[in-house]
């Protein structure tokens, strides 16, 4: 009865609130938003004497941004689409940032101070080719030199002022690929050097005004070139031949081509495959041979001569003109935990202008890129600053021997996320602290009271806001009663693990994955996924929780895997192991050993399955459940889903007793001519479901089919696998399946004619909600499918249930042939979707909300009640009371329901939810280029008082009431006495 009352009250509460929203002054109290740009590819400094010093960067996340050189803050930032990769960036006319993107087919100009787009030009592109952007460096602003762009087989000259294409030249027929464009200053002739099929060098002299070819020279090179090229002066380039053993100097003075070959073996004894470091140095060349960096001076007649070599792995910057026709460049190399930054003159390598040694965090890895900039100090000498990109993608500015600022850009490429608890706080607080907090507490509440009684002055309002942000120690590093403080563990693409605090999003610790064996083959494993390894709660309370990071050495699927166990509290690696087999899939099992370590199975490419942890206890637990462990693989390219069962130990092949062989049990083959798998999904394994029954308004019972072994598969016809709108409705259809992964039985199949992917789906409890495009209606649609169990439906006798004579809690098996029926309904949805997630709470009682990551990089919270197949056009009174919303053809988008409110999570890729200890509340973390975190209460915080609750008002009310009671008592006593005396 109590539950019934509770549920009814809950329903009553939840039906009273239709949407989640917050007040303006609540923004930023529980949520935080961090802006990133990603790993920097190009950087262009803009350090004029006047105005703010800035650096323009383009990144691998397709971001072009302007950063403040003093603090590293983002002045402005534009995130281009995922397919709009930036090929080049430059500054034209001193006021425009020029970016070339999409393989040289889109040229854009952005206003330098504020980042407004000035113009955009689509360039004609016929084929895939390397693209090249050449922005003239002209000091005279009045003269308009064109921007030369090569891409897609065409050479374009574009006016920097308005983006107008001045002329274009078609090179598609010859297969000519431009390698270098040289624009000698003060001349209207430009030199375009390129290769035809990497065997013939061609130099065109083109009039930059008209685009006419003034002269053309070509010369065959019998050996063929590799693609690497370095231009050393205005009339010379050095390339590598196709065998990578000969350096070829190509001179093209006045349009004449000359080759000069220099074998690498002439330069150094230990020859090998050479690599040109693509640095722009004048009359100098950097070649990497056998992990040594050689500096090769290019003489007047193309003579090559080694002048210096560095044994360490070195990153170099382009050369930069310093005073008196001198050029300098920066190089950075490691030595232990330090890095050495050196700035040298190109012509005199012995003349080191700057030598700085900086202590560097081990967890940043090696230096990947260096960008150098100079400035004139007050004593008129040259000062240098260097922007370096580290292996973990972080960006640092070095100046005067110190790190001026750093940005953790690895967080722009989060691949996997999990959450972890913080350590328990220590009991016992000192008296002084209590007194202090008591005073603060009272002061704060008086302020709040003022605010709620509308008596607060503007200063008070500011103070209240500050107090709220600081309040309740939300940034402490200990566990709290409500479970609001947690750690978000984020694994990034460069293999760095970050722990972020939910209170303010700061980095608590970070750790770069290391190779356990330090072998040459695997210098740095890349992280794949993250699992909860040990979550102590009942026994083993004194152990720290830990996570498992699964990594891989190399990019192909047969590369050996690396496991790393990381302590969550300290961020230290407990152990790591080179497991000696490949990692195809990782499967956390629902069993833990006596120290609460979760058992994991890792499948390799040969079809063997390996058990972790490798302890005898784990083995005995696994042996007990051996018959009941299955795994399946989805081969999307072939359209096959295979189910496997454990067969036996593979001790016959190897001596490893933790290795098991598998046997194929079932296959589901989709016809390749009509169906192509585009999406699969299962329930989250750690999701908690409160009840197995769904109660209708007329007390009718439906039993949910709640199974973890259910796979949602969406297929489209192969023609419709492309872009939306590329096929006619007749040609495309979308089919979704619900497949039992134990038996391979297809439980449900639903076909949508004239529909197309991409399919974004979410699977929770007994329902799937998926989003796709309807070609006939030209609209996006959302469909909900709820799965119910028919075989349990006869359990309706109350007396049997009261006496416990039912089989509803008995363990079930997939082999008992489940009879399921489904209910589904479709709605239009006005927005394109990037990802969908669902809220999750500790006990699963609170009603759910769908979290829809929209194309605008915002997150929309939509009540599950809107996607309920029981919605009808005219719900009865009882159904209305239950909270069923009248059916509409379109799902509503309520502006207040955007949980990201004014923020955008640029480049949104995923949303992760985790329960807090308070049943009403859930943590939401969204990642993309940006990070966003907030706490949500889908049915409002029914189990706690809100932060705005005025305890002072309550206290004052109670005191006033007590006083009133006392006064009236005294008065009544007096009156009675006087009555008696009368």
């Amino acid at each position, binding site marked *: *009865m109590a539950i019934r009352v509770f549920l009814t009250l809950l329903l009553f509460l939840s039906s009273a609130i239709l949407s989640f929203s917050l007040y303006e002054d609540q923004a930023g109290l529980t949520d935080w938003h961090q802006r990133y740009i990603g790993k920097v590819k190009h950087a262009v400094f803009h350090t004029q004497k006047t105005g703010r010093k800035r650096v323009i960067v383009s990144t691998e996340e397709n971001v072009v941004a302007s950063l403040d050189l003093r603090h590293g803050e983002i002045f402005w930032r534009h995130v281009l689409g995922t397919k709009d990769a930036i090929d080049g960036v430059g500054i034209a006319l001193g006021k425009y940032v020029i970016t070339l993107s999409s393989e040289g087919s889109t040229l854009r100009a952005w206003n330098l101070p504020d980042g407004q787009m000035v113009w955009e030009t689509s360039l004609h592109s016929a084929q895939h080719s390397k693209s090249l952007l050449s922005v003239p460096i002209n000091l005279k602003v009045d003269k308009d030199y064109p921007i030369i762009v090569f891409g897609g087989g065409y050479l374009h000259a574009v006016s920097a002022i308005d983006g107008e294409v001045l002329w274009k030249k078609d090179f598609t027929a010859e297969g000519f690929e431009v390698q270098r464009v040289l624009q000698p200053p003060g001349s209207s002739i430009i030199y375009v050097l390129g290769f035809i099929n990497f065997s013939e060098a061609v130099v065109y002299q083109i009039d930059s005004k008209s685009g006419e070819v003034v002269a053309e020279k070509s010369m065959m090179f019998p050996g063929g070139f590799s693609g690497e090229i370095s231009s050393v002066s205005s009339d010379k380039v050095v390339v590598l031949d196709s065998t990578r053993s000969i350096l070829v100097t190509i001179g093209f003075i006045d349009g004449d081509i000359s080759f000069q070959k220099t074998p690498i073996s002439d330069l150094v004894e230990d020859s090998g495959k050479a690599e040109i470091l693509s640095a722009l140095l004048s009359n100098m060349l950097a070649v990497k041979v056998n992990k040594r960096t050689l500096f090769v001076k290019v003489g007047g007649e193309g003579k090559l001569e080694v002048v210096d070599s560095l044994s360490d792995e070195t990153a170099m910057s382009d050369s930069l003109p310093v005073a008196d026709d001198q050029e300098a460049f920066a190089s950075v190399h490691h030595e232990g935990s330090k890095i050495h930054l050196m700035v040298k003159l190109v012509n005199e390598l012995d003349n080191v202008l700057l030598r700085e040694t900086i202590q560097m965090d081990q967890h940043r890895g090696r230096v990947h890129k260096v960008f150098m900039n100079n400035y004139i100090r007050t004593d008129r000498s040259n000062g240098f600053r260097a922007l370096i990109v580290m292996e973990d993608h972080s960006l640092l500015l070095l100046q005067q021997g110190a790190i001026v600022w750093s940005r953790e850009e690895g967080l722009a490429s989060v691949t996997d996320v999990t959450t972890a608890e913080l350590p328990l706080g220590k009991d016992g607080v000192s008296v002084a602290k209590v007194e202090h907090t008591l005073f603060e507490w009272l002061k704060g509440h008086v302020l709040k009271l003022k605010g709620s009684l509308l008596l607060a002055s503007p200063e008070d309002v500011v103070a209240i806001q500050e107090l709220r942000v600081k309040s309740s120690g939300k940034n402490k590093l200990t566990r709290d009663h409500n479970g609001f403080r947690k750690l978000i563990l984020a694994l990034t693409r460069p293999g760095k693990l970050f722990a972020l605090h939910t209170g303010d999003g700061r980095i608590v610790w970070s750790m770069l994955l290391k190779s356990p064996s330090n072998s040459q083959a695997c210098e740095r494993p890349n992280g794949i996924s993250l699992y909860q390894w040990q979550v102590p709660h009942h026994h083993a309370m004194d152990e720290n929780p830990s996570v498992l990071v699964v990594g891989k050495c190399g990019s192909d699927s047969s590369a050996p895997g690396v496991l790393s166990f990381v302590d969550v509290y300290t961020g230290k690696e407990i152990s790591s192991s080179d497991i000696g087999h490949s990692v195809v899939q990782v499967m956390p099992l629902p069993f833990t050993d006596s120290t609460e370590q979760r058992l994991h199975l890792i499948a390799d490419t040969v079809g063997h399955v390996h058990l972790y942890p490798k302890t005898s206890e784990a083995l005995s637990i696994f042996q007990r459940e051996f018959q009941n462990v299955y795994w399946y693989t989805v081969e999307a390219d072939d359209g096959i889903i295979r189910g496997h069962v454990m067969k036996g130990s593979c001790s016959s092949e190897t001596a490893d007793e933790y290795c098991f062989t598998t046997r194929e049990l079932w296959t589901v083959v989709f016809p390749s001519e009509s169906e192509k798998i585009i999406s699969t999904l299962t329930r989250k394994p750690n999701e908690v479901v409160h009840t197995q029954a769904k109660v209708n308004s007329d007390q009718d019972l439906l039993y949910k089919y709640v199974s973890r072994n259910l796979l949602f598969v969406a297929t489209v016809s192969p023609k419709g696998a492309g872009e939306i709108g590329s096929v006619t409705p007749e040609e495309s259809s979308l089919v979704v399946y619900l497949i039992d992964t134990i038996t391979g039985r297809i439980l449900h199949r639903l076909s949508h004619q004239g529909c197309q992917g991409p399919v974004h789906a979410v699977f929770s409890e007994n329902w799937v909600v998926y989003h796709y495009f309807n070609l006939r209606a030209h609209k996006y649609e959302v469909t909900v499918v709820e799965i119910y169990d028919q075989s349990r439906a006869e359990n309706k006798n109350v007396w049997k249930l009261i006496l416990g004579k039912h089989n509803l809690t008995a363990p079930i098996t997939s082999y008992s042939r489940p009879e399921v029926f489904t209910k589904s309904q479709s709605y239009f949805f006005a927005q394109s979707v990037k990802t969908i997630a669902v809220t999750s709470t500790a006990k699963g009682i609170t009603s759910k909300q769908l979290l829809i990551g929209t194309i605008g990089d915002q997150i929309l919270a939509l009540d599950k009640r809107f996607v309920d197949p029981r919605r009808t056009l005219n719900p009865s009174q009882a159904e209305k009371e239950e909270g069923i919303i009248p059916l509409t053809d379109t799902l509503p988008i309520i502006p207040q329901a955007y949980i990201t409110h004014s923020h955008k999570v640029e480049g949104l890729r995923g949303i992760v939810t985790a329960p807090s200890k308070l049943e009403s509340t859930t943590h939401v973390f969204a990642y993309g280029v940006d990070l966003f975190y907030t706490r949500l209460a889908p049915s409002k915080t029914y189990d706690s008082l809100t932060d705005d609750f005025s305890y002072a008002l309550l206290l004052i009310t109670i005191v006033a009431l007590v006083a009133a009671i006392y006064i009236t008592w005294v008065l009544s006593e007096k009156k009675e006495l006087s009555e008696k005396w009368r």
Partner: protein
Amino acid sequence: MDKGKAVMGTGRRWAVEFSDQSTVPSSRDILDPPGFSRASQEQDDSANSRQKKDAEATWKLQKAWEVAQSPFKNLMMMGFMMWMAGNTVHLFSIGITFSALWQPISALQSVGKIFEPFKDNKVELLMPKLVFLALNLGGLALGVWKLNTLGLLPTHASDWVSSLPPPQEVEHSGGGFVFH
């Protein structure tokens, strides 16, 4: 009910003593007025007291019946209030329902006390008590019925199944796309 209780429960406030004790000759200092015959009055006394006792018994029985029937009025009022409260769960309807349950229960508990003033070996109190009980049980039934219409009684299968967690699964599976 309340009225009867108030009258009978608190006892008498005043009484007229008809049998005068001052007839004892030694204490008599004032002579009887002329023409007053004391003997005739004393003769009447026994008949008078019997008559008086009968009247009291019938009066007690009448009062007992009144008390026994008093819950009926209550019942009617409760019914009306329940009808007013409606069938949705909110503060008013819950308050009414619980008072409708509480009143009969408390009345049933104190049924002996209520009929105590009417106790008399000449008065047959069984029937009034039974009526009183029946009416209160009726009130209780009304309350329970109201509770049920509010949906607060676990009479449906859903009330028993909702608290059951989903069953454990025997088999476990995992997998999905191959890591690239």
